[in-house]
């Protein structure tokens, strides 16, 4: 008889449990017509939701609809702006998704019919669905800043949807003379990537420190406080002295109100600034298709059930990522990745006419202040009992007394985050 040890005991139990933990452990739906899931949007939420559904039950027909042939990640785009990273390193294609059984349709989704359960694309294709997952991202509210529109954004980039805009801002920073002024104008809440503008200021300062040391960065904020504020303020001072100046909403009258892209001036209620480079990040709302499909409320974002991410306006449609009103979770890439996993589980359960289990959500968000100076905020969340909020149950910020070695390691872990997140999305 084999020896009864703790290890054998766990192995015996473990092997039996392994069945239940491989994917979601669902048998294929035998005999029934193939269930169809359509996913709109090839960013964090869309790619990961599609992959996790295909992984959980390969009998479900998963179609991902994305207009662009490739995706530029917003994360790490600030390093492109700072000059430490090439734009090509944040560019990813969808070619590996087919090996997971996902049908990728490279076309723009232009219409959703929630009643007929159909999606129409620009070339006229109609895709029927049992469940639709939308991760459409954001649209910019140009109208909130006088004089700012798509044409003006060529002179004063927002660089808040990565790609061409990222390259544009980088080029302008390279072209400007030493001693110039850069204005960075972050919007009020809520917006995509709350620490993003402040990491960007640091990345621009990193470039200036080594190439244009007489230049200045002025952050004209719409808000009176911002994400990781203490850590950013500490990092700015330690690494860049007084190169970065932050002006709170109280002193700007609520941020930048108008721009003149020809004269290169930026105006608040109190001041006009003549600038060398302007990075104008307007207020945001859910992407246009979410509005057209009647999935938004007066806030401009999509109300959803926080346990399944099913729309509160139309059944069988789920919204994840930055477009959703996900109370308790930030509009971050990592949050979107765990929303996608929770949503995929809910959708698969529903298609099998089963109740989804208990959810778990997380966020891990790094900001790189300098090549050897990273900071982070992390959190673990659970669904609140009344489903009105996703509640933080643990987590926190980089301690303000973190050692230089720890701050350096955080940069390496940020790069690992990037590699693994993009592997989750596109691998």
């Amino acid at each position: 008889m084999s020896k009864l040890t703790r290890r054998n005991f766990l192995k015996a139990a473990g092997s039996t449990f392994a069945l239940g933990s491989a994917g979601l452990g669902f048998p294929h739906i035998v005999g029934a017509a193939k269930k169809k899931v359509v996913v709109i949007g090839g960013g964090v939420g869309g790619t990961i939701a599609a992959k996790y559904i295909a992984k959980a039950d390969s009998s479900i027909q998963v179609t991902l609809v994305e207009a662009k042939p490739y995706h530029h990640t917003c994360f790490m785009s600030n390093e492109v702006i700072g000059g430490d990273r090439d734009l090509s390193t944040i560019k990813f294609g969808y070619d590996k998704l087919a090996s997971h059984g996902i049908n990728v349709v490279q076309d723009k989704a232009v219409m959703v019919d929630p009643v007929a359960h159909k999606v129409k694309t620009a070339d006229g294709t109609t895709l029927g669905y049992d469940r639709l997952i939308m991760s459409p991202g954001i649209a910019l509210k140009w109208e909130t800043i006088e004089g700012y529109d798509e044409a003006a954004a060529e002179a004063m980039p927002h660089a808040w949807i990565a790609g061409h805009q990222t390259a544009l801002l980088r080029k302008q920073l390279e072209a400007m003379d030493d001693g110039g002024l850069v204005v960075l104008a972050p919007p009020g809440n809520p917006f995509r990537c709350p620490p993003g503008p402040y990491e960007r200021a640091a990345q621009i300062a990193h470039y200036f420190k080594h190439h244009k040391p007489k230049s200045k960065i002025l952050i004209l904020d719409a808000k009176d406080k911002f994400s990781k504020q203490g850590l950013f303020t500490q990092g700015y001072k330690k690494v860049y002295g007084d190169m970065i100046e932050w002006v709170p909403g109280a002193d700007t009258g609520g941020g930048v109100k108008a721009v003149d892209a020809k004269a290169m001036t930026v105006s608040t209620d109190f001041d006009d600034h003549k600038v060398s480079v302007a990075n104008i990040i307007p207020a945001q709302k859910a992407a246009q298709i979410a509005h057209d499909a009647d999935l938004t409320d007066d806030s401009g974002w999509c109300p959803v059930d926080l346990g399944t991410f099913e729309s509160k306006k139309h059944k069988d449609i789920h919204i994840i990522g930055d477009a959703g009103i996900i109370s308790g979770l930030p509009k971050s890439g990592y949050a979107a990745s765990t929303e996608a996993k929770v949503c995929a589980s809910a959708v698969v359960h529903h298609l099998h006419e089963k109740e989804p289990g208990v959810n778990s959500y997380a966020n891990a968000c790094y900001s790189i202040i300098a090549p050897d100076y990273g900071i982070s905020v992390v959190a673990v969340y659970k669904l609140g009992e009344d489903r009105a909020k996703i509640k933080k149950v643990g987590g926190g910020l980089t301690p303000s007394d973190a050692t230089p070695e720890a701050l350096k390691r955080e940069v390496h872990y940020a790069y690992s985050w990037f590699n693994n997140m993009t592997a989750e999305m596109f691998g």
Partner: protein
Amino acid sequence: MLHKVALEALLFCVFMLLPFSTALAGETASPSMLSDTCLGCHGPGGISDGPATPTISGMSEVYIIAAMLAYKYDNDEDKVEAIIEADPDLEDVEFFARTSTVMDRIAKGYSEAEIKVIAKHFASLPFVAAEQDVNKKQAKAGAEIHENHCEKCHENGGSSAEDDAGVLAGQWIPYLEYTMADFESGDRAMPKKMKKQMKDAHAAYGDNSVADLIQFYAGQK
């Protein structure tokens, strides 16, 4: 053989009935629901794409639990020992202090029951070695040091995941470097045996012994 199967079946039944078997309790999320949230940093299937975050799939259950408890309770030995003492499931878990950047914050979001579910999940998945270049000369020197000082606990060239031994073979170089730097600085506690072997290895092979060991482990498949 029949006896073994019968025993395992019996053990499984016992396990099912244990009150602390929270994997089956209605209130705990499923193993994949809990563990999938880790993968944005630790990689698809728990296999890290690097450069620094370790692969956690294929590590031993007790290793993962020991790490998570040390993180969760900020290396409070008394607290962790009390938890180990109170839970027969944790009989093989030993406390060792360890430092981290984000994991001490993340671990606080999970209960002991959830940590056990997560540990069992990743322990059940296969380890896949990192694809990376190593210094062959150093790796060769490291192989000898490993054989003489490490193999006894880190069996099979550091690839075995038994008890409190972490998987070393095929981990990313920066991760191995951080880990060894923490052991050497005292930020991470070494088991007594390891402390002695490290001292002996230093004495026998000189200052490069750790760097050589790292190259050896990094090149293992």
